[in-house]
């Protein structure tokens, strides 16, 4: 009489503790597998083929990667990505500076804050267009200004020496706003007692900032760092809108190079594009792993 419970239900009872978390995770895991893991594996798989997206895939092993290593454009893109990475980090101190400046109580501060945050709200494409006009020879504000100062026009977006820097400046504008908002929320959580204590001990100005405020902003800095590094590596919209990689490919970055090879009018080399994507993915993985390791370590020590 006592053993009439069906075996499946007893299995459930026995393992409920173990199974429940997986059941709750299942929807998320499913999404992650379908939209993240499978495409990654597919990309890597495609990168070993010569494929135009229409015909048969031809297995060429590491052929795409060998070609990539011999491609001048790849090195231009890699170098530009490095410049992006380094200069884009400027948005962190810039964001901090703006946040400190705005972290006060005056009438209308909410309005000022939203005005400073504005560039992050508008689309990157719009930012790109605005800066294109800003730099435009003959009628752009910047060109006019340069002409007035130096007597000579500089067509930033047509000059291979300045073009990447010109685009990065455009990118820094919204990115600074993003870092600013991160720091503004961070500043809200600062312990006022510590600040007061430090002031009593005579700390002020830069020393107060460096020794008391910044350590408390650690989490904000961490997040700002992560989004900025990743953001710099996937810089695509601005390059696409402002120069399309030009003049003659000198403002190329990996993400745009990938798009151009795989998906643009002059490309449709899916295999080659996938190979570029894999390289970009590996570079990102270096940074992502660093961040994850750091995060895990913090969690463990906490």
């Amino acid at each position, binding site marked *: 009489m006592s053993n009439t419970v069906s075996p499946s239900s007893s299995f459930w009872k026995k393992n409920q503790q173990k199974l429940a978390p997986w059941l709750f995770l299942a929807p998320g895991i499913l999404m992650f597998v379908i939209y993240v893991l499978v495409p990654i594996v597919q990309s890597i798989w495609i990168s070993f083929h010569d494929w*135009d997206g229409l015909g048969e895939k031809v297995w060429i092993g590491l052929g795409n990667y060998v070609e990539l290593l011999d491609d001048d454009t790849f090195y231009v893109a890699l170098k530009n990505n490095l410049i992006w990475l380094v200069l884009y980090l400027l948005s962190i101190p810039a964001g901090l500076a703006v946040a400190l400046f705005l972290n006060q109580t005056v009438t209308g501060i909410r309005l000022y804050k939203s005005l400073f945050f504005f560039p992050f709200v508008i689309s990157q494409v719009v930012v790109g267009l605005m800066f294109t006009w800003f730099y435009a020879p003959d009628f752009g504000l910047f060109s006019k200004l340069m002409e007035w100062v130096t007597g000579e026009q500089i067509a930033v977006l047509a000059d291979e020496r300045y073009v990447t820097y010109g685009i990065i400046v455009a990118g820094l504008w919204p990115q600074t706003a993003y870092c600013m908002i991160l720091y503004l929320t961070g500043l809200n959580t600062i312990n006022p007692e510590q600040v007061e204590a430090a002031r009593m001990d005579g700390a002020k100005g830069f020393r107060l900032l460096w020794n008391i405020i910044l350590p408390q902003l650690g989490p904000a800095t961490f997040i700002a760092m992560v989004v900025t590094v990743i953001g710099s590596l996937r810089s695509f919209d601005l390059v696409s809108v402002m120069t399309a990689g030009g003049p003659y490919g000198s403002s190329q970055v990996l993400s745009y190079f990938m798009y151009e090879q795989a998906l643009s009018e002059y490309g449709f080399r899916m295999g080659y594009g996938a190979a570029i994507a894999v390289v970009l993915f590996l570079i990102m993985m270096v940074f992502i792993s660093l961040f994850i390791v750091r995060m895990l370590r913090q969690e463990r020590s906490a």
Partner: protein
Amino acid sequence: MTLFKSLRLLALSATLLSTAAFAGEITINSDHSDPVPKKAMEELIADFQKANPDVTVKWNNFDHEGYKSAIRNFLTADAPDVVAWYAGNRMAPFVKAGLFEDVTDVWTANGLDEQLKSSAPSMTIDGKKWGMPYTYYQWGIYYRKDIFAEQGITPPKTWAELLAASEKLKAAGVTPFTIGTKALWPTAGWFDYLDLRVNGYEFHMDLTAGKIPYTDPRVKTVFEKWGELVKADYFIANHAAIDWQDAVPQLVQGKAAMYLMGNFAVATFKDGGLKEEQIGFLQFPEITPGIPVAEEAPTDTFHIPSGAKNKEDAKKFLAYLASPAVQAKMNATLGQLPVNNTTQKPKDVFLDAGFTILSNAHGLAQFYDRDAQAEMAKAGMEGFQEFMVKPDNLDRILERLEKIRARVYK
């Protein structure tokens, strides 16, 4: 590829569920999204339906840029009955992948080999015709008649005369040529014409078909001629920062006197404030004496996908599209030239000039980015742009192009 398989399955289930595929209906996909082409298309479809009351036409109009990638999807997944595309090497990938239907029978049945003679070579791959051309337009040098008159310049007919005219203009403070190379393709107009005039049509076609190395001395001669203009600063400064429309004001304001462009630019000149009597058109001057004169005439076409459901009526549509009266009416709206050589001459001055030039041409090039393979075209035009900014890099540019040619056309 599993993605495409599932797309195909999706398409299949869609056709099973819907009733779209009954006889007497054709679906046309095209990118006539600008106001004028859209109007021409609407008229064409209305007239076709009047002539063929038993056929219903369903028309999907796409955005111009989006169409270029969309066509790859719908050709493999859910093919319509007629699609708009371009002649020459631009259609080659679809022909080679077996996505376009052979329409040689439509050509022979309607005597089109004779009537569409000028476009026959660019519609032929492996001895078969793969589509129907309906419009093209000429390229050439548009110049300011009033400025030329002011400076006492007669329209140049030879390279030497062109150089002399440029020198005179430059001395008078007018930049001879305006151009905007940000989108790269305007540079290809220059390369094509210089190559056509220096080495001739056959050489140019062989080069764009990848049969001749870019390091060939004859290619270098082309760039040397080009360099004579570039090094003398006969092109406007900072052209790499602007699009072709942004280069028009230079011409309108009289800061520049000539513009090598397609005939579509005339409308923009007029919008900018130039009167018709201020604009002149001249054929690109002769360089190597005695070489048969070829021209640039990009051709727009319609094709039948091999996956079409109603090929019979689609062929009816193509035959209708090829007839002289239809081409005349459509091109009158488009402001372009009919391909059919039995149509009446157009009334517009520039079109009339173009019609005469093109019907006497030894051969018609489709433009570099349609004649050369897509990848080669992109790299080539980047090279042209670099040359126009830094002419001294020529050897490096040509070596790079040769490397790409060797890979693309292996």
